[in-house]
């Protein structure tokens, strides 16, 4: 019984996590954890940006040249 509840709970957590990732990318902010993981694997010598720096950098990049959006 508690096993099933635990499984449901982790499924709900996963769905929520995916929803948050989707919602953030819908406004142009990619997943921070993926970025950190990428930095760790490929550029281990560099310090990755903090969550706040990452957010700022992405926001500026998205709107720097205006943004083409549909009518």
């Amino acid at each position, binding site marked *: 019984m508690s096993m099933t509840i635990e499984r449901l709970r982790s499924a709900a957590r996963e769905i929520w996590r*995916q929803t*948050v*990732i*989707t*919602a*953030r*990318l*819908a*406004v*142009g*902010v*990619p*997943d921070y954890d*993926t*970025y*950190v*993981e*990428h*930095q760790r694997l*490929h550029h281990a010598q560099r310090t990755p940006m903090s*969550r*706040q720096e*990452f*957010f*700022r*950098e*992405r*926001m*500026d*990049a*998205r*709107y*720097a*040249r*205006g*943004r*083409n*959006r*549909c*009518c």
Partner: protein
Amino acid sequence: MNGLFAKLAWLLFAVFGAVCLGVVALQRGEPINAIWLVAASIAVFVIAYRYYGRYIANNVLQLDPARATPALRRNDGLDYVPTDRWVLFGHHFAAIAGAGPLVGPVLAAQMGYLPGTLWILFGVVFAGAVQDFVILFLSTRRDGRSLGEMIRNELGNAAGGVAMLGILAIMIILLAVLALVVVKALAMSPWGTFTVAMTIPIAFFMGIYMRWLRPGRILEASVIGLVLLLLSIWAGGQVSQSTEWAPLFTFDGKMLAWMLIGYGFVASVLPVWLLLAPRDYLSTFLKIGTIALLALAIFIVHPNLQMPALTRFIDGSGPVWAGSLFPFLFITLACGSVSGFHALVSSGTTPKMMASETDARLIGYGGMLVEAFVAIMALVAAAALQPGVYFAMNSPAALLGGTVESAAAAISQLGFVITPEMLAQTAKDIGETTILSRAGGAPTLAVGMAQIFHSVISGQGMMAFWYHYAILFEALFILTTIDAGTRVGRFMIQELLGTVYAPLRHTESWTGNLIATALCVLGWGWFLYQGVVDPLGGINTLWPLFGIANQMLAALALIFACAVLIKMKRERWVWVTAVPTTWLVICTLVAGWQKLFHENAKIGFLANARRFGDAIARGEILAPAKSIEEMQRVVVNNYVDAALCALFMIVVISTLVFGLRAAFAARRSDRVSALETPYVAVSSLQT
């Protein structure tokens, strides 16, 4: 056995779709239920996705899951990130969904619901979704390059320059027409104006919150923003009833136009974190939430369609916009079935994040099908209104006169029954003083949506709340488009000016920035103001221009796609893009020609200029102009519109010539000559 069973299931589904479509197309006399239309659309979309989408993926484009996408090759965790296809679908859909597919179908409803429905369904399956899909694929094969760059590389510098000019022109006209939609919705409406104005301080607060108070907390800030928005809708109701406050937020069209022009200038030079970004977040979430809500409400309420399947205005004599079914229905519907703008989005951030080429079918083709479904819902909302109310809201003041009595009489002349009391009551229900002559699509859609939502959650004053919610939802993302678009236009102008005088190109320089921003705002502001003072209602003039521009851009993208398919030696399948290209080129050119040279002054710009010019020569004043100066302005405006229209036609024709030249050169060569980034296997990247 299993395969046979699946085939049978698809066959049954196809029969179901055909029955629904048959009901929609053939039912006459009594109103049909919206659910038939919705079910027919879903069936068409699912079958098109399963069969035609797959055909394009496997045969025409030959998507290759073994070929590394830019996201895999250049993965940097920032711009190039391999992303789950459903997550990326959300991103792509948020970028393509806008005001166009909501406004176009509402305006097209003047001919009845049937022509619009059919064009949305067939247009999206064979043209719109094909364009989005193919451009997404081509951009993915070119490191996510933009449409303009790709055209320059594949068709030559001159073609690239022409395309850039075309894109700038469509940007200007798009901003003008969207701003006009907002003006039409907010004119003389203190409730609407107050709530929309409140989005500015709310966005400031969210911006400060995300930068200083709780950095990077997008979702938190958006939820707070949403609550404040709903509060401001409520507060707007109070404002509209207060004798002290209401006059402070009551403006006529001209005032609102000037305010929007000023706003566009200031907003596009402010730092992005303060206004643009937070409001973009808010409008994106509100937009997706509202679309989902509308879909749900239509299923629950399943209203009857009051509008006839066909009205007599298919002959071109309609009061909302002039021109016959061909080509103007296709021009008016614009984004709901084919949108050139999507070619810009499909060659923007999405191709840089696809994890596999095969995802392009879901994201490109599937994303556009969902957009067309939004258009169908907008059409349902408009067609569920009493036709009398619809025409009262969308006909110009010159036809209706100023009072509910004169309007009801004029609409009865058109052949639709409506009483003055019903018009007055509708205005009262939605908390406005009048609903007459509010062309532009947004208010009509808002009344339609309010009626549908009201059937789900009703109560004292809820109708007015839902109406202003719908207005806010549209105005919010239109305003976001205005300041984002003004920025885009500014950079394009700086690039163009830079070719004449290099220092103006520096995007950090304030001189270049301010000059280019001012030019861009002046450009769309001029058309906006002209639209506001236009006695025929403005939308009548500007929406066809916008539609022509948008279809022109789609034609450009598709011509480019045809040429590249030939360069790839895929001649066998080039019909997939060549058929919609031919149709769009014919539509834009015929519509452009008629807007220029049609002898009916309501359709042809030159005929209208001549009509007023001749009257000036005779010393006569034609209503609704009141002086010779106003008459002269009408003449000048019509010449400018004509010039712009001619420019669009020249862009289409010259791109066609460049495309044909590239295609014939590619035919003569016996090698593949498309300029793709070299093949890298996915397997070679995995370490």
